[in-house]
């Protein structure tokens, strides 16, 4: 039985499989399933039944999202399917692995998603710095056209699909799905007001689905091996496997495909090898830079969406960043604030003005000039920049490590004020 559908073909030492070798290991079987008569509606129902949730950060059910696309004679004929491959969340390195390691899996998933919503054009929005992924995807797309999996009348189904690779030029906000659509249209990548949601009015005003790379890589298995098989993968309440990464001062940092519901401790100790000698675990961000800190006492929780949410954080991208006992928590949060401040698109005031202010205060702390008043201002910004106050989720994302950092590491902030220096610097 297949237990690692996302990474079963990945061997970075060997490089990605070409299309013939990929076909030999059940590759493009899902397209054959479609060719045998699976309707778009049935495809959507299968994905709904699988329980797949988006792996791009928000964890929204994929089938449900697709069902908002208007269908039928009165709906716009042109629909678009868009792959969000703009991976840039600090500490996140999972989509790169999928694209460099097994690009055909993504292309196969794109065919399924596009077919389900009846999109004849799909764009892959790829981060500009991912040059190895770019070359791997270009080759995979060419091969898929040659074999008739892309183009017109795919395997005699009457379904047509063109896949276009768009490489961006480096800006975190492009990962926000409506900013991404503006960028694809050639505009400055500023988020759009919602509603209307992209599912109804997206790229050039047409119904559009945006899904994350890893989400899409789940699709081939669901069609090829079935929903029952998919439901057998998990150890917890959410379905499927997921890529989990660990970075920071652990013994063996890396990225692994594990069942959802795996205990955090298993990821941290068995896979990442625990902390390096002489260091202790002080805390961790469970799913990239926009998630709240968790503490060593949370290690026995499971990697499930709900369970992490109950602990006050989010599973999000599933890539953990480790804070060790020798690293300054104030410096770590400060580094994240600089990132968010620089990557603010500048459209709305709380984010454009608030984040640089926060960043400036962290510089003060770093230089030993932080004050109690500064600390108060930081606390206020957790609220000013929080959910509902800004146009998109970038600023609220920044408040996750900020608010939880202020709470869990209050002692460290106070020591910076009292000692008039960073106590971690020797």
């Amino acid at each position, binding site marked *: 039985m297949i237990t690692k559908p996302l990474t079963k073909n990945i061997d970075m030492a060997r490089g990605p499989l070409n299309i013939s070798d990929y076909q030999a290991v059940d590759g493009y079987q899902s397209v054959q399933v479609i060719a045998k008569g699976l309707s778009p509606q049935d495809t959507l129902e299968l994905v709904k039944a699988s329980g797949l949730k988006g792996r791009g950060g928000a964890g929204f059910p994929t089938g449900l999202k697709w069902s908002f696309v208007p269908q039928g004679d009165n709906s716009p004929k*042109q629909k678009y399917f868009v792959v969000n491959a703009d*991976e*840039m*969340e*600090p*500490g*996140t*390195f999972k*989509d*790169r692995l999928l694209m460099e390691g097994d690009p055909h899996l993504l292309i196969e998933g794109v065919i399924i998603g596009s077919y389900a919503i009846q999109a004849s054009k799909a764009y892959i929005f790829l*981060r*500009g*710095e*991912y*040059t*190895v992924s770019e070359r791997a995807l270009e080759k995979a797309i060419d091969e898929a056209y040659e074999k008739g999996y892309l183009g017109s009348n795919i395997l005699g189904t009457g379904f047509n699909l063109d896949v*276009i690779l*768009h*490489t*961006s*030029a*480096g*800006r*975190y906000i492009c990962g926000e799905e409506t900013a991404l659509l503006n*960028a*694809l*249209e*050639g*505009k*400055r*990548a500023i988020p759009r007001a919602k509603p209307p949601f992209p599912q109804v009015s997206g*790229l*050039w005003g047409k119904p559009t689905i945006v899904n994350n790379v890893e989400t899409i890589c789940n699709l081939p298995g669901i069609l090829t091996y079935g929903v029952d098989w998919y439901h057998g993968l998990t150890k917890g309440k959410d379905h499927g496997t997921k890529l989990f*990464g*660990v*970075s*920071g*001062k652990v013994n063996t*940092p*890396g*990225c692994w495909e594990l069942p959802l519901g795996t205990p955090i401790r298993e990821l941290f100790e068995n896979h990442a090898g625990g902390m390096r000698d002489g260091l202790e675990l002080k805390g961790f961000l469970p799913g990239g*830079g926009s998630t709240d800190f968790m503490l060593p006492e949370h290690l026995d929780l499971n990697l499930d969406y709900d369970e992490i949410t109950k602990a006050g954080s989010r599973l999000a991208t599933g*890539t953990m*960043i*480790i*804070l*060790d006992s020798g*690293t300054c928590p104030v*410096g*770590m949060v400060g*580094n*994240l604030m600089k*990132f968010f401040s*620089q*990557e603010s698109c500048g459209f709305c005031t709380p984010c454009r003005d608030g984040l640089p202010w926060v960043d400036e205060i962290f510089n003060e702390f770093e230089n030993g000039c932080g004050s109690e008043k500064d600390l108060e201002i930081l606390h206020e910004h957790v609220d000013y920049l929080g959910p509902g106050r800004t146009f998109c989720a970038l600023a609220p994302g920044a408040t996750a490590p900020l608010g939880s950092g202020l709470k869990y590491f209050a002692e460290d902030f106070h020591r910076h004020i009292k000692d008039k220096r960073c106590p971690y610097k020797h």
Partner: protein
Amino acid sequence: MTSSGLIASSVTRARKLSAEEINEIEHEITLYADKKAVGLEALKIVQKHQGWVSDESLLAISQYLDIPGSDLEGVATFFNLIFRRPVGKNVILLCNSVSCWIMGCDEIKDYIKEKLGIDFGETSDDGEFTFLPVPCLGDCDRAPSMMVGDNLHRNLTLDKIDEIIQQYRNQ
């Protein structure tokens, strides 16, 4: 004013796009529903051929795609990897995001700065290197990480920096 919204005096400064550039831009146009969508692609194409995007190039693209110059400039300045100033032969992009910071990218930065005599945003006098920070390169399990041109260099140490710089100097 011309149709693309530029003042006439600046229009005369537009350079002529090469046949190769035009071919590549024309190909991109076929992939999108609206030719105005390929502004970024055109900027990247020109940068690939010219090394950077000069005012003359920007104006040429603006005319070619019929995008107001100010809009195209808005796109060009928005993206980190579009260079509106000349850059060195090799562009070093050093990740300074959180995992690389934990793993010591500040030390790597100071070392490169001293070795090449340039800070972030600067180009070495011999025109060999431009040094820029970049957000998380998605390579955090092998931090610290950086790119030189299209190539990724990972698990950086000070010794490795010596080797890498030498390698590009020799090219």
